[in-house]
């Protein structure tokens, strides 16, 4: 396969008004919505991430697409085929499991060949295909090993090879990286993305790790309590989160209650923050009557002599690429990340002045309590 080849046969996934309820624990006839009228679409060849805290319904959604769970109502289409009532083995989807789920009693080769054998392919063809995919994954030398005889990263590749070798129309990922240590994890997700792009397969990827989501996806779908909170590219969601919850989940953020909100219109808000009047971006859902907060990303707080806000350093910690300061500004505790390294001499207790990158501040509907 050549680099960057677009899979012309790729099809999209369409989910319409999907509902899945489970009986609520301890309540007769009560129910919990794991998916509450969810609609979404994945374009052909696209890699879409379902991101959200645990229990938000993302895995349930994935398992409904796979066919392991029956939706309570709604419709799932893969390409132009309605698959809602089709059992998983007839859907032609591939899946990578959190635990890899390699067959422990089969060699790497047999694991990968399993799906092809089920398609009643001829032996020579199976051999060629398996060899090609093992080559692509750089694990051909382990073909005759058993899963417990290879490393975690290699098992990961086998699982991916097994999932894509049958050329499924959709590839589903159920937190496949969560068992890897941090270093390997970062490496593997690059690999995953490369291979996904090369094969050009439509993919749906479930994770609760925001960096996974940001690193590999074309589109991020943020879920919470069975509903979609926000859809967009990683950048859009990071820069313009819909509310405080999303902002806090994706990346770090300080939330400060403004002194006053004067007007909100057309995505702009006129506010007074820490005693100063300013115009910042605002979420559409922010009315002036709502209790709103201002999102300040730690990297948007700049230490400078011309800064308009007086601050005191409560504590500092050194992280290599950046220094993290905990600042007290006008009675609020605000976290700051300094990537410049030019303020290394500052000490706890020092009085400084800071400014905000006002273009990046954003007025958001607030949460009563954060649950992260």
């Amino acid at each position: 396969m050549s680099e960057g080849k677009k899979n012309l046969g790729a099809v999209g996934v369409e989910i319409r008004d999907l509902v899945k309820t489970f009986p609520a624990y301890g309540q007769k006839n009560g129910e919990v919505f794991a998916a509450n009228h969810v609609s979404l679409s994945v374009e052909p060849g696209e890699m879409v991430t379902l991101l959200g805290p645990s229990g938000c319904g993302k895995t349930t959604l994935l398992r409904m697409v796979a066919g392991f769970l029956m939706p309570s109502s709604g419709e799932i289409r893969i390409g132009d085929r309605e698959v809602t009532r089709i059992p998983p083995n007839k859907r032609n989807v591939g899946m990578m499991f959190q635990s890899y789920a390699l067959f422990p009693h089969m060699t790497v080769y047999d694991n990968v060949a399993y799906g092809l054998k089920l398609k009643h392919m001829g032996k020579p063809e199976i051999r060629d295909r398996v060899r090609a995919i093992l080559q692509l994954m750089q694990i051909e030398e382990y073909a005759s090993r058993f899963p417990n005889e290879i490393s975690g990263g290699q098992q990961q590749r086998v699982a991916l090879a097994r999932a894509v070798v049958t050329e499924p129309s959709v590839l589903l990922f159920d937190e496949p990286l969560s068992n890897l240590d941090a270093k390997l994890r970062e490496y593997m997700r690059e690999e995953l993305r490369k291979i996904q792009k090369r094969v050009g397969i439509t993919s749906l990827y479930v994770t609760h790790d925001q960096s996974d989501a940001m690193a590999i996806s074309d589109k991020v779908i943020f879920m919470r309590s069975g509903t979609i909170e926000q859809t967009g590219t990683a950048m859009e969601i990071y820069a313009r989160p819909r509310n405080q919850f999303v902002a806090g989940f994706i990346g770090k953020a300080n939330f400060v209650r403004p002194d006053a909100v004067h007007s909100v219109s057309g995505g702009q808000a006129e506010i007074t923050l820490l005693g100063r009047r300013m115009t910042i971006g605002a979420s559409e859902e922010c009315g002036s009557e709502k209790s709103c907060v201002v999102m300040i990303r730690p990297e948007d707080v700049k230490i400078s002599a011309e800064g308009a806000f007086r601050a005191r350093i409560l504590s500092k910690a050194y992280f290599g690429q950046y220094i993290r300061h905990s600042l007290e500004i006008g009675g609020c505790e605000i976290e700051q990340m300094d990537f410049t390294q030019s303020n290394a001499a500052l000490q706890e207790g020092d009085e400084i002045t800071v400014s905000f990158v006002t273009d990046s501040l954003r007025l958001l509907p607030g949460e009563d309590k954060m649950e992260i």
Partner: protein
Amino acid sequence: MDSTVYAGKRRRKSEKRREFLMLMKQPGLLFAILVVFAILILFCVYPIVRLFISCLTDKTGQLNLDNINYVFTKTDFFKAFWNSIKLGLFVGLMATVVGFIYAFAVTRTKLPGKKFFNIMAILPILSPPFVISLAVMLLFGRSGLITKNLLHIRGNNIYGFTWLAIVQILSLFPLAYLNLKGMLETLDSSVENAGRTLGASRLKVFLTVTLPLSLPGFLSSFLIIFAKSLCDFGNPQVLAGDYSVLSVSAYLQIVGLFDLKTGSFIALSILLPCMLAYLIQNYWVSKRSFVTVTGKATGTVELISEKKIVIPLFVVLLLMTLFTLLMYGTVVYVSFVKTWGVDWSMTLDSYQFILKRGARAMQDTLLLSSVATPLSALLGMLIAFLLVRKNFFGKRLMSVASILPFAVPGIALGIGYVAAFNTRPIQLTGTAVIIIVAMVFRTLSIGVETGSNSLRQVDPSIEEASIILGAGNAKTFFSVSLPIMKSALFSGLLNSFIRSMTSVSAVIFLVSVNWNLLTVNILSEIESNRLGAASAYCVALMVMVILAVGVLEFIVNGLFARRRRSYE
């Protein structure tokens, strides 16, 4: 609120319908479920129901309680009932205590020879039920080696409560031992370690931590053994004497007085306390267990090595073991002796006798057990697979039905089979089929249990991986689940085989002129006081079981060996 509840109901209803539709699209799965249900209802539920019906009706099929009235007023039913209960309570308690001592010694101390003690403790489960009774007769009976020849006691009476209880404790404590050993091994030992670090002495930790945490295991062992003691037929038949118990009464009513109805009713009356014990055990005690399986290796217990604890335990275990060995040794020895108590010269007479008289029975036993075992294990694994991995209507019923033939007393099951299958349309009495079927369903729950346990430990996504790659349910079961369940399959097969080979009560009414079984022969030899022949039968049976272990291991390993090929 009401409207959302209503919507929830309606949604769940439509979900049920969708699940049903999904099932309809998997004809293989649906077929398997329906077939399993049909089989279970026919062979597990129906015979018991028939047993009830035959007790409550007269010959014309009318409801008639005279029969019950007769049992209550004209037989020694109540005496037998209380005798059975008393025996069960005592044996349950003592066997559990002995089992706990064993289990504690093996899991919590630095006892020398643990492996040996472990094997010796399991031995009574593997052997025919009569071996210990027989040995007791040979050693302590009227012309017993110890009583008559060593102690010169004339006419020692071993028939009655005392020796029956001793024999039952010896043969049933392994169940408590295995149960409590499993529990002590999985009990999060860090709790005990925590007790120690907080400054408690060993005794204090034992009394305040280990013992209270063991209580559910204790109770469940007690209940299981209580039920087993009640259902036991072989030992009381040999040793009870005047101490009448229910299982023997039922047997005597049928065999001695040809009164099937009275026998049925007495057999059913064992069922009640037995089922009660099983139900309490299954649905109440097991939920109160403190055992937590996290899949994470928790700290190991610091094994007790103090001499003042280990030595007494060692002595107790050693004495128990020596006693057990003495029992088995006696039986083996007797099988080679000319006439026990009279002529001690060595001879193969007993073996010649059983070869002449019992060759058929041995062949039949081996053949029928060999046919029944794989059927039972495979059906058990299939049911385990359905119960653990699939969702369908009537799951609970399937689970209960599969346990039923194991939970009911063997004697009741046997009578039920006779009642259910001796007339058209399903006339099986006198055939090999009825014995095989009884063996299959009597041992079914072993396969279901071991299969379920091992499946629960296997990540379900391994099967999902197979399905999503395009395999159907049957393909997944045979090429993924079953090979993974290999060791469970092996122990299931082994267990079923041993149970089939050594079963007495369930099959005693099912044997016929055409098909006879070894255990039934042993019983009749004991009754005719041909103890040498009985011993030789026992030895033959034990040898067959040991050989079967080897053969089974070979077959299962060969069948599902992990194959590594080169792919050039």
